[in-house]
């Protein structure tokens, strides 16, 4: 058992946690913005998959990783705009529209990928993002090499957390987002356009989901495979609840999940007896369900979440 513990608390382990947490942090922040404005985006799983595909394809065709990231972000914005069109402009059920967006985006991702790359026994790969050590900071023992010798997208995620908190709590637009999520009628009387603000928040969320997808195929796996997202989008939705719709707490939730996931990976690698590794893959999901049950007692969702807004109606 002590050997297991030794393996766990290494520099590599800390670095692994941060890499696993990065796409989750992007996705969770994205979903949080959407939900803060009152829109549950269940399209996230499919949107991330489609973004992972378009990012990978754009990068592999153009040879530029950042062009790939841009393609992924634009895809995320377009697909979440579609979700907003259905749920915000037309006021349709957020649950069912989100599932529709996920089914549509996943199907489209697989279809277009197969169309572009054909059927190959080994999936094509790209040379993904390389680690960029930050001078001085990366020299700090343990923490330095784990946190400050990472991919550029990891640094972007680290910056995104305080930035999201600032935007949400300290800017007029952030105030509008919170108002349309809590009390759209009051926001409307105060002269805030509920429809426009919700559209903006959902689309911003989609851009972040795009970054999450881009990270998976351009930094973590450097290839697009069919299980590349494998439930990370659904996990992000749970992490928003677990993080109580707050940027800092949501990012913390992403780190905690990443810790359990990295632990699970280590347990697989240490080959505990003859337990099939899929047993360990269940752990982060079970952990998330249990954590939600524990935390949801005092979780307070934005009160207008799931409720469409129509000005003429009461």
């Amino acid at each position, binding site marked *: 058992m002590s050997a297991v513990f030794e393996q766990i608390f290494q520099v590599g382990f800390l670095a692994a946690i941060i890499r696993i947490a990065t796409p989750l942090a992007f996705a969770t922040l994205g979903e949080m913005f959407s939900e803060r404005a009152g829109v*549950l985006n*269940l399209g996230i799983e*499919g949107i991330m998959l489609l973004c992972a595909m378009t990012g990978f394809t754009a990068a592999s065709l153009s040879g530029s990783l950042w062009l790939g990231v841009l393609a992924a972000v634009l895809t995320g914005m377009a697909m979440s705009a579609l979700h907003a069109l*259905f749920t915000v402009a*037309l006021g*349709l*059920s957020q*649950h*069912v*529209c989100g*599932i*529709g*967006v*996920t*089914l*549509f*985006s*996943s*199907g*489209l991702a*697989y*279809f277009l990928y*197969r*169309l572009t790359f054909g059927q190959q026994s080994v999936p094509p790969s790209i040379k993904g993002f390389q680690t960029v050590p930050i001078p001085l900071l990366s020299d700090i023992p343990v923490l330095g090499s784990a946190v400050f010798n990472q991919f550029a997208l990891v640094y972007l995620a680290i910056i995104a957390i305080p930035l999201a908190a600032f935007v949400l709590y300290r800017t007029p637009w952030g105030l509008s987002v919170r108002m349309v999520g809590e009390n759209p009628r009051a926001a409307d009387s105060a002269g805030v356009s509920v429809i426009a603000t919700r559209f903006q928040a959902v689309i911003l969320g989609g851009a972040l989901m795009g970054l999450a997808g881009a990270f998976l195929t351009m930094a973590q796996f450097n290839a697009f495979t069919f299980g590349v997202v*494998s*439930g990370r989008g*659904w*996990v992000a*939705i*749970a992490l928003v*609840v677990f993080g109580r719709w707050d940027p800092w707490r949501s990012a913390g939730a992403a780190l905690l999940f990443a810790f359990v996931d990295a632990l699970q990976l280590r347990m697989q690698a240490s080959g505990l007896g*003859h*337990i*099939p*590794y*899929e*047993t360990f*893959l*269940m752990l982060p*999901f*079970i952990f*998330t*369900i249990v954590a*939600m*049950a524990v935390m*949801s*007692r005092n979780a307070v969702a934005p009160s207008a979440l799931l409720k469409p807004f*129509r000005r003429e*109606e009461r």
Partner: protein
Amino acid sequence: MFRLEARSSTPAWFNLALPLLAIGAALVLCSGLIALAGAGVLEAYGVMLSASFGDSYAITETLVRAAPMIFTGLAVAVAFRAKFWNIGAEGQLLAGAVASCFVGAIPMPGALAILSMALAGAAAGAAVALVPATLRVKFKVDDVVSSLLLNSVIYYALMALIEGPWKDSFSGYPISPPIEDSANFPVLLEGTRLHLGVIAALIAAPLIWFLIVRTTLGFRIRVTGESPEAARYGGIHVERVLISTALLSGALAGLAGVGEVGGVHFQVMSDISPGYGYSGIVVAMLARLNPLGVVPAAIFLAAVMTGAEAMSRATGVPAFLSDVIQGTALLAMLVALLFTAYRIRRVGAAL
């Protein structure tokens, strides 16, 4: 300018027209992808149609594929009626498949084997669905999220079984041992795969319709879905109704898995369901949550799935087109549903 105006009543012919409109819109929208793949649109759809309905064998294949989606469609329709957001039909189906595979491997006379497989599968599906329902009733955990996450848990549990204790030690393939021959569902038509489970699915639809429309439980489910406050005021124990709905919904999804094990694959493998649980949501919405409408909706999706494979072989258009058609049909149906509650009216000066 146009504006949406609330309707006071919905014309009856809408029930038939809207799904057809949605399906038509989906097929038209997806023809762009066929053209993008460099194939003829009419040719591609022609191949799909003849591969799914062209001869009696094709029709039976389509029905075999429709059976699990009838069950998952009913599961979703029942749950959504009570506004129990069961997105977990996929996991419940897998649990049903695993449980029925366990039971089917026990030597028993045929009829008893099939009956116990059905019971075990339904019970397993119900047990899985009970988790999100209980979490919602007791801990106020969002049922969408918990049922979604459970899909992953059940999938990995199945994978652990077929990679671990069930793994074929002889060939090394990650598949379960086959069920007993006596537990194989009888084939109804010589030379086809049309099995008993298909008939069970076709009978289940009117039964569930009767349950929803004519029984007390069905009434409670509907009232709870329409307005929990009114239900409570009317003396309905809303929590109990949600739990019953979950058990019923999960059992139906579990039966979808039983049919796949007993009638099609006779064992469990990792890809036993190509997403039938998620397709159930599309089916239920196309059917407007009406159990009778679930049958034609499931047959349509099954035809698209069977047809897409043939189309892919004939024209080279990736078979994933069927997934895109499903997603598009669901979104188109949601837009179509808008017209049941609203009409578009021109306001302001006419141009």
